[in-house]
């Protein structure tokens, strides 16, 4: 790694000042993806600004529910904490399951919620220090004519990366919002945090320079709300998903009142399958309904030459998560 300074700010304002002091100053939370990029030469900061030494912003470390039942999850909460959060009920099962499915036990104890949402893509062309792909200022996405077995089937072009955040799929399904500290504090629905390649292929999130993601909030659950998460990987332990699905459904008096179906690792941004949601809302849960919703989930998919396998894989995951969340027995 290129030599760098380690700045340990005591307050969030000091952290913001240090990050804005120079473009080569980078904020560090758990640092897992950051150190990886620095070892590969993809990131060459002159200073790392430690978020973990900030002591005047308790919200950064909070994992708490307010009186109305809304959750506040600090940016420094680790994946291990989320995976072990026994206080999460059936409504937040998707988040607990997603956090427990990512990476390894030891990485989960370092990796943070904020870092997971803001990590860079895993595309092997992007991660290769010698290759200049579209994301690094090149003329085109090298995945189109390359080995794109892990790339996007939905929302692709002009870059076909898949968004790497597993927590994002669950949080998108849970209608989470993100809070940002900056020149002015602001909050966004999580879907608006992400930038698709048609808007700007060189970045994946909308944070302005010097802005710090401080926490994620999740609205209070409705009665009868349940969620679930499933992923398929080449290796079921410790691997990146080929596809992943988080669903969040509210059933009232036998009818589905609300539904969110979020897909991960199939599109450059965490992807809402709105056609699947529309198929579910107002209906009574049944195996036939779930089958229709699963088929609708990949509507509009445009696979590349070698990744069409992700279409049936994603449909199968939508089916499995919906059967679990809606408590409909799977057909034999």
């Amino acid at each position, binding site marked *: 790694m290129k030599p*760098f*300074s380690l700045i340990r700010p005591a307050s969030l304002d000091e952290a913001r000042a240090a990050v804005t002091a120079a473009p080569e100053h980078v904020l560090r939370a758990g640092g*897992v993806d950051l150190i990886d990029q620095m070892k590969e030469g993809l990131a060459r900061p002159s200073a790392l600004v430690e978020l973990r030494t900030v002591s005047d912003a308790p919200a950064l470390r909070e994992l708490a529910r307010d009186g109305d039942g809304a959750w506040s999850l600090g940016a420094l909460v680790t994946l291990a904490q989320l995976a072990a959060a026994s206080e999460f009920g059936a409504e937040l099962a998707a988040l607990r399951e997603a956090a427990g499915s990512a990476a*390894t036990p030891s990485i989960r104890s370092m990796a943070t919620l904020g870092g997971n949402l803001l990590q860079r893509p895993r595309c092997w062309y992007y991660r290769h220090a010698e290759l200049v792909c579209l994301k690094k200022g090149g003329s085109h996405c090298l995945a189109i004519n390359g080995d794109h077995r892990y790339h996007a089937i939905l929302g692709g072009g002009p870059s076909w990366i898949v968004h790497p955040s597993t927590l994002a799929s669950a949080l998108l399904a849970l209608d989470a919002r993100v809070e940002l500290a900056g020149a002015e504090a602001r909050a966004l629905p999580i879907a608006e945090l992400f930038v698709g390649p048609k808007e700007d292929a060189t970045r994946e999130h909308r944070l302005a320079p010097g802005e710090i993601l401080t926490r994620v909030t999740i609205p209070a659950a409705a009665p009868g709300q349940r969620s679930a998460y499933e992923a398929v990987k080449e290796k079921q332990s410790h691997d990146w998903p080929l596809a992943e699905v988080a669903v969040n459904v509210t059933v009232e008096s036998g009818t589905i009142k609300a539904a969110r179906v979020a897909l991960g690792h199939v599109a450059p941004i965490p992807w809402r399958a709105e056609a699947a949601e529309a198929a579910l809302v107002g209906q009574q849960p049944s195996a036939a309904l779930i089958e229709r919703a699963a088929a609708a989930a990949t509507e509009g998919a445009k696979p590349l030459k070698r990744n069409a396998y992700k279409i049936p894989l994603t449909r199968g995951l939508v089916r499995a998560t919906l059967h679990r969340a809606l408590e409909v027995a799977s057909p034999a």
Partner: protein
Amino acid sequence: MSKRSGITRRGLFRGIGTATLVAGCATPKAPPPEGPAQTPPVTPGVTLGPGPAPLQFELNGQAVTTEVPPSATLLDTLRLRLDATGTKKVCDRGSCGACMVLVDGQPQNSCMTLAHDVAGRKVTTVEGLGAGHDGGQSPLQRAFVERDALQCGFCTPGMLISCTALLARTGGAAPSADAIQDAISGNLCRCGTYPHVVAAVKSAAGGGA
């Protein structure tokens, strides 16, 4: 740290290859044990580096004082400056688990940890697991030998760290096979000795296998 007696492969290579470098790299060695480590907590408001900066922590029960730049990983600091070569460097990207150590009892990939992250904390490497046990081996280490839980042995230091932490969490009670498999899910063994590792952990916990 333990001193090896006689000629070892590593000692021989080190003697041949690095004799001329020694003068230029006066590595501060761990001081002799003299009670608990003086462990200053990390002070906010301080900037370290980019050159070498003083670092103190506890390594296998001994206070360590050294000086490394912020860019030094804990793994490289252990192996290259502190002579604690039991911890292995394989992928260097947090994927294989060969570099795992305990930081305040928690398994951590030392390759993705900066040395300065452990300022004032307690680090245990595989060299420290046998301390205080008969024959210098913990029951888990003996079980690894008895159950043939290693072939080439390169993943073994990391496996032992993960499994030691697991047994600490269960209070020594035998974990289920699922719990053991989950605990070692970040430790790659290309020889494929996983079933023997599971058997060794159960056996060390007195649960048979």
